[in-house]
């Protein structure tokens, strides 16, 4: 067993690892860092980022992330990106606080840092891109029901728990805009506790108590699926429309059966697209991330920042029979 042989084999072993080519240097390099690789939602976000890159022309997207959804894994990724002197990092974080020291260092070395989807504490990023905002969601859930009730009608809410912060805020925001939807009456609010069986029973109860019910609005991904099933089982498809917030993969059946005409949730493609556009604006066009600033993000319009340098991208995206097949395999 000669030493030469050892060396030759080691070299072969090691060089096999570095087969990937080095990238062109003149491009603007924007890193899209996700919670973990291999998740459909983030793969779709990458698709959006690639779309933005193609539109901008001279942008290279580095789509990366750890194997598991850990902060330590993301820090290793961030360190490698700092070392490469990328132009911008757009991250969906696994931990609001643990990434701050690493991202601060990135900013000190002149890298643009923004968070999207899942945020980083304000000191660790320049801005945060929320997929939507509470007022927009509150408006969307009632609009989804009202769009199919041109002559008005009775609707009921199926929420998560009485103490679910998000759902309560959204319903509060919804109540504020009820004046814009004349003829629509909210007859009841019930709570399914985000449990499939309890949500199912509550939805069934609603249909028995209010025989003229036209729509059930469930601003929770558990409740909306259970309510759609309850409507199918009660034979009320076509009479009661189930809508609210849900995941395309779980709601594809309800759309197909007609129990749900449409529902909404964020669109990951738009999110990746907007994050890339914002990163480009901040790092290349001198856009300033400050409270009140309006930053353009291509086809998605502009992002207006609040006092925490956070902004909402858009209305939740509406899914119906026309696009559900495209998205049900994504997330």
């Amino acid at each position: 067993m000669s030493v030469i042989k050892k060396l030759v084999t080691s070299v072969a072993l090691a060089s096999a690892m570095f087969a990937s080519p080095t990238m062109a240097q003149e491009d603007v390099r924007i890193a899209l860092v996700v919670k973990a690789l291999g998740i459909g939602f983030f793969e779709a976000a990458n698709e959006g980022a690639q779309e933005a890159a193609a539109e901008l022309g001279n942008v290279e997207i580095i789509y990366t992330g750890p194997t598991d959804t850990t902060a330590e894994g993301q820090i290793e990724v961030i360190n490698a990106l700092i070392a490469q002197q990328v132009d911008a990092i757009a991250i969906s974080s696994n931990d609001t606080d643990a990434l701050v020291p690493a991202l601060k260092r990135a900013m000190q070395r002149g890298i643009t840092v923004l968070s999207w989807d899942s945020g980083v504490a304000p000191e660790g990023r320049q801005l945060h891109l929320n997929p939507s905002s509470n007022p927009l969601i509150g408006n969307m859930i009632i609009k989804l029901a009202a769009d199919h009730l041109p002559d008005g009608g009775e609707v009921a809410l199926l929420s998560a728990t009485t103490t679910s912060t998000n759902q309560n805020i959204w319903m509060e925001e919804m109540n504020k805009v009820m004046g814009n939807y004349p003829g629509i009456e909210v007859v009841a609010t019930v709570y399914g506790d985000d449990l499939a069986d309890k949500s199912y029973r509550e939805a069934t109860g609603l249909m028995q108590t209010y025989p003229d019910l036209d729509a059930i609005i469930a601003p929770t991904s558990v409740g909306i699926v259970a309510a759609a099933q309850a409507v199918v089982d009660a034979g009320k498809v076509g009479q009661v429309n189930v809508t609210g917030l849900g995941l395309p993969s779980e709601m594809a059946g309800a759309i197909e059966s007609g129990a749900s005409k449409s529902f909404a949730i964020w669109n990951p493609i738009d999110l990746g697209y907007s994050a890339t556009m914002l990163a480009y604006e901040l790092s290349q066009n001198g856009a300033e991330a400050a409270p009140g600033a309006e930053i353009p993000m291509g086809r998605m319009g502009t992002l207006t920042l609040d006092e925490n340098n956070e902004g909402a991208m858009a209305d939740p995206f509406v899914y119906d029979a026309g696009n559900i097949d495209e998205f049900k395999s994504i997330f």
Partner: protein
Amino acid sequence: MTDATTARNIPDRMNSRAVRIFKSWEALLLAVAITIFVVNSFASPYFLDAWNLSDATFNFTEKAMIAFAMALLIIAGEIDLSVASIIALASTAMGLAMQHGAGTPELVTIGLIVGLLCGAFNGFFVTVLGLPSIVVTIGTMSLFRGISYIILGDDSFRGYPSSFAWFGQGYIYWVFTVEMLFFVIIAVAYAVLLHKTNFGRAVYAIGNNPTGAMFSGIRVQRIKFILFLLTGLMSGIAAICLTSRLGSTRPSIASGMELEVVTMVVLGGVNILGGSGTIPGVVIAAFVMGLVTFGLGLLNVPGLVMSIFIGLLLIGVIALPRLWTMAAERRKE
């Protein structure tokens, strides 16, 4: 039967010291490390930068601290799979103390004590009750992290005192981090302990033949208990460094780290069945793993592919010498 023994090639003298070192596991590993370093330098223009290399050391320093203690434990024929969970529990305890106003010295003390207590807990079940360590520590792996989840749930502790950041974010001089200093001190301490003391000889003896060791007057259970204590202590130190580096505690902290630590130990040439292995081997293995992950990271190789490389590296480095030996024996016949 007698033919077989006489046919064996018996050398008339031992190989010289230089030849033995040249042919050793550590030499092979060092060659791999140097190769990876050279290949990395060519593959990425960013690799040969003092600050970047300094950042890269964070990929392995904390794991390596535990790996040294784990190496001794594995040489003695035991294993501790709860190390990452000990980090979670120690970090949670420090977070709780911080919320009640503890300063940096208290936080460090608490981290070390929780580590020691967890080690003692494992050690008690293995040495006093005589249970297999792999079973006990799979249990405590869930237990320790479970306690963290009960205390923290979906929440996190943050707002550690700024002086606490020194451990995981501080620099001694230029690019040399505080964690590197710890790494070097701990490596030297364990090298001396394993290779230069009676304690170290006893660890090898236990790993090769626990019964024989006992009849030779070695206090087997007591030494094993100390090894579990040391592993707990090192996990406590790693918890201090990691918590300081992250600046926050979540119950998922360091999840999956136990397997990376064991990988590092085995890659370092420690026999997973016990009885042999060296500290220098583990040191080089730490560098190999750190350099590979950082080098691949610079090329933006996805994490999934990276773990495939680490797996291949481990199997390759372990299998190749064995294959050569078999091939060489066949040629002689």
